[in-house]
């Protein structure tokens, strides 16, 4: 479990991104995807990132895990760059990506069996950890099942459990529930919310589902069209874990509508007056890293 005993540690962000620039290599030359993204996620905090398709959300998330390289800018996890051997972040992929030849339990144990995990607990400890997580995601009794025998939603629960097994301080989720039906998605969102709350795990969740973003996030960052920048960040004023009532309540609907409006208006650089009230002006990329958005910068 992540402890909150040190006030200094609690105040320091778990994830910090300064001035992240990235591009896709295409046949017709480099295509910029990230255009100076700054963000910070505090201990135990959930940041939801919404944006149009292809705005670089996944690239941003992958750069946090060290799976994608940035052209410029810096990423730090608890003050250090994401490098080999780090286990402080767990990654949940968009597609259920379990090893088909292993049981559910062995899949969950995967991270614990690797050298990268400093502890490398005994078989009995791994097993106990896997069963504990299965209970947390509501799959008790399914430990011996193979992924192929599970529904998409159940597989995504296993994915979640696998990412949590190494006890990361932050979870990175890439549209984790986009491949499941609406009812399952809402149930999984509640499972995720409760799980993150129970473990005190911070998270960055990338999604194109605004309701999901508002339901899960302590803050919702809105990204512009590609090349993506964070154009506004909304504060979600609701304690976690969040309930089904909140999920279908008026507050969520109203805030979602505002996020939707912001998403639609996109990155209107011309009408910057509104933007500059809420965030730093869009400036040419400075050689000095800019400060990340602090909590609640926008839309107070």
């Amino acid at each position, binding site marked *: 479990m992540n402890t909150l005993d040190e006030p200094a540690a609690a105040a320091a962000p778990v994830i910090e991104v300064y001035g992240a620039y990235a591009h896709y290599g295409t046949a017709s030359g480099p295509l910029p995807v990230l255009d100076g993204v700054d963000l910070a996620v505090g201990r135990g905090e959930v940041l939801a990132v919404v944006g149009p398709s292809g705005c670089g959300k996944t690239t941003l998330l992958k750069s946090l*895990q*060290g*799976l994608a390289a940035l052209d410029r800018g810096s990423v730090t996890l608890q003050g250090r760059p994401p490098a*080999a*051997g*780090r*286990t402080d972040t767990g*990654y949940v*992929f968009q*597609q259920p*990506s379990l*090893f*088909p*030849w292993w*049981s559910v339990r*062995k899949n969950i144990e*995967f*991270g614990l*069996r*690797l*050298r*990268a995990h400093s502890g490398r607990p005994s078989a009995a400890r791994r097993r106990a950890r896997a069963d504990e997580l299965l209970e947390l995601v509501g799959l008790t009794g399914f430990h*011996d*099942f*193979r992924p*192929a*025998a*599970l*529904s998409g939603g*159940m597989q995504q629960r296993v994915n979640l459990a696998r990412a949590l097994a*190494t006890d990361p301080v932050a979870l990175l989720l890439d549209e984790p529930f986009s491949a499941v039906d609406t009812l399952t998605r809402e149930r999984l969102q509640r499972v995720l919310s409760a799980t993150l709350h129970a473990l005190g795990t911070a998270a960055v969740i990338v999604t194109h589902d605004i309701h999901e973003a508002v339901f899960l996030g302590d803050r919702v960052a809105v990204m512009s069209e590609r090349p993506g920048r964070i154009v506004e960040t909304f504060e979600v004023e609701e304690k976690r874990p969040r309930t089904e009532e909140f999920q279908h309540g008026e507050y969520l609907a109203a805030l979602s509508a505002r996020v939707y409006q912001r998403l639609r208006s996109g990155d209107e650089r011309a009408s910057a007056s509104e933007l500059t009230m809420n965030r730093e002006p869009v400036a040419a990329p400075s050689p000095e890293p800019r400060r990340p958005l602090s909590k609640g910068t926008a839309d107070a």
Partner: protein
Amino acid sequence: MPASAEIPRGSWGSRVRRLVLPLVSIVAGLAVWQLAITVFSPNPLAVVGPVQIARDAAGLFGAGTLGPDIGLSLAQLLIGLVVATAVGVPAGLLLGTSRPLAAALGPWVTALYTIPVIAVAPLVIVGLGFGFSAKVAIVAASGFFPLVINTQAGAASVVGGGLRDVTRAFRANAFETLCHLTLPGTAPHILTGLRLAIGRALIALVAADLFGSTSGLGYLIISGQQNLKTDDVYVGVVTLSVIGIVLTALVAFFERRMNETRTARTEQA
């Protein structure tokens, strides 16, 4: 909780298909063959019937030559296949996981794969002598290619798939990625390669025996041809076929087992 459908394993229908039908087919084929021999009585130098083959086999066995011939050929075949696997699988894994290596060595694999074994067998024998090791080398070289090609294709698809991102996200090192992802993912392809290698290795074995051998099933066939003992030719050919069927069935059994365990509902099933 959604109950997933039970996957029928080894049901009666599938067992009948797998075991009974092939046997019925073989017995029926032999009966038709024997009947055709009796009815048409063709030139016995060209075609002999199963009964005559069995009689000759029994005679050769009684004379104490068939047993050692089978033993020698089996030994050469199995050792050759082990060598082919030991070299072919790592080579395939390397080619499948390294694009530069695949690009650089791909033409060599293709070029060497298409060389008829009969063309190079004498050269190998010149190099390694008439003995056991030359035969093993020829068998191994023939079995190597199906193994390398299948392993490479399997490894490339595994490493190019989404699970590679998972091992990267979990920061697995190269060895862990090999053990947890590449090998288990490629295993079915390796077995398919082995199954194909058996067929090629059998052909290579006879080809190797063409050049200066004094025993083995290939020798039995070739000396039968030279001495107009058609019975012996058939005994050699049929014995090789039986070896091929048995080895292939063995590998197919493991392939099926692997597929069944992987699609089974639970690990214990």
